[in-house]
Each structure stands twice: as structure tokens, then as C-alpha cells.
């Protein structure tokens, strides 16, 4: 049942793009829904023990997704996504940002352009996400933050989780 899934994680030659590819064991309409519906996003977007909670979601070109991630200590990080292009069940583009609860963007943090594409892979679905930062320095800042922002502790449990999933 649990085949090893295709998973690619690379930094582009330009040093400012990040490419993530992952295959999912579900049809494309389902995977698309999981990426574009607030109720579903809230169930998986934040890596545990963080939780993601949507305040508002307007999935159309020019619309935004305003949500926050809440850490185990109660710390809250507001995030915003601006959708700039949507081809239903095929691809979408958005611009991310950190912000306050009103959705006012904090320009002290780097922003990235996201391009997500969805392709059939037999009965499965391949998702490719390319995130592009303005500069190599921006990507570096974000990579460092990923570590600093306290995800580390959460991730120590990951190996265990993965093991239990593989043996399930």
C-alpha cells in the first residue's frame, strides 16, 4: 500500500528558486481541492504541532487567503496569499507575505511568487511548486527562518511519524 512517493526538493541554479515535486495518491480534482479550499488547507498546511486557521479565503484571481499559523506556545504568525493566476485543476500562481491580522503586509520579510501545477500521473497526481524569491539573500533568509521559527522541535518527531506511516 505505502509505496515510496516521488519527492523532489531542490534549489534552482539561480539560487533564488525552490522547486518541490510530490506525487499524491489521489485524483487531480481531489488534490486541487485540498490546495484551494480553506477547510481542507486548514487540515494540513501547517506542519504539526503548528495549526493553520483561515480567517478569509477568496480563491479567484485578485482574491486573497488570509490565515494564521499558531504554534504550541500560542505564538501566532499571520500570512497572506494573493492569487494572481488560476487555471482550474491545472495550475495557480500566488504571491505570499507575512502580515498582521488585518492582512496588512509586513515588508520586512521576503515575499515569494508561488507557481503550483497539477498533473495526472496515472491514477495519482503530481504537484510541482516553484517558489521564486527576489534574490538569493531572500531565499537564504527564509531557509534560516524555517529553522529559527521553532519548527525544529516539531520536526524531531517526524522520523517517528514517517516510520509509523511506512510500517502501517
Amino acid at each position: 500500500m505505502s509505496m515510496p512517493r516521488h519527492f523532489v526538493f531542490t534549489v534552482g541554479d539561480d539560487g533564488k528558486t525552490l522547486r518541490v515535486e510530490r506525487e499524491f495518491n489521489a485524483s487531480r480534482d481531489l488534490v486541487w481541492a485540498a490546495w484551494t479550499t480553506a477547510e481542507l488547507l486548514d487540515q494540513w498546511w501547517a506542519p504539526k504541532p503548528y495549526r493553520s486557521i483561515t480567517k478569509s479565503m477568496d480563491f479567484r484571481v485578485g482574491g486573497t487567503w488570509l490565515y494564521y499559523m499558531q504554534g504550541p506556545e500560542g505564538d501566532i504568525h499571520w500570512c497572506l496569499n494573493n492569487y494572481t493566476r488560476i487555471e482550474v485543476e491545472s495550475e495557480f500562481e500566488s504571491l505570499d507575505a507575512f502580515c498582521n491580522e488585518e492582512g496588512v503586509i509586513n515588508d520586512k520579510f521576503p515575499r515569494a511568487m508561488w507557481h503550483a501545477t497539477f498533473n495526472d500521473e496515472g491514477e495519482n497526481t503530481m504537484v510541482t511548486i516553484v517558489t521564486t524569491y527576489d534574490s538569493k539573500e531572500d531565499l537564504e533568509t527564509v531557509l534560516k527562518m524555517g529553522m529559527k521559527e521553532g519548527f525544529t522541535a516539531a520536526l524531531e518527531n517526524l522520523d517517528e511519524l514517517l516510520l509509523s506511516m511506512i510500517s502501517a
Partner: protein
Amino acid sequence: MRRDPFQAIADPTRRAILVLLVAQSMTPNALAEHFDTTRQAISKHLRILTECELVRPLPQGREIHYSLQVKNMKQIDRWLEQFRRLWEQRFAQLDDVLNTIRRKKS
């Protein structure tokens, strides 16, 4: 001048140089033999890698040998690894969500 290490690894030739230096320290001439490029170009790449503190020049007699600064290489690796794991975790959660929906549907 201290440059950022991502600039160093952004270039394919510099990545190839780093890979060669994993095995042993090498002179610019020895490195240049592995590439279809000039000795000057290799020296320029080595200068950038040195500024980023990913390699270190060690004079040996009349030659300069370059060796990896392993600790700094590991730092880049660690950032990437943490970020990669974050995505892995996120996707494992998405797998669960998808499985749940499918079960409800069938």
C-alpha cells in the same frame, strides 16, 4: 568581503568544484583539468568560494591547495534539510487528508 553561501552554490561549476574537493584538497591547475574552461575562470570561482568561506586556500610550497570548509557546507545543508522536512511533514498531513476524503467518498 563576506558573500552569502547560496551565491556560491548557485553556479553549476562551483558546485562541481565543491564535489571534487570532497575527496581531497586540490590546486587550481588540478581542478581546471576537470573542466572545459580556463584556469583563470577556475581561479575566479575559487575566489568566490573562498569569500563565502566554503573553501580555504592552504599554501604548500609554491602551490596553493584548496580544501573544503566542511563546517560551513554543513550549515547550508542543515538549513535545506530543515526546510525539506517541513515540506515532508506538510505533505504527510495532506496524504492523510486525501485518504480521509477518499474513504468518505467510497
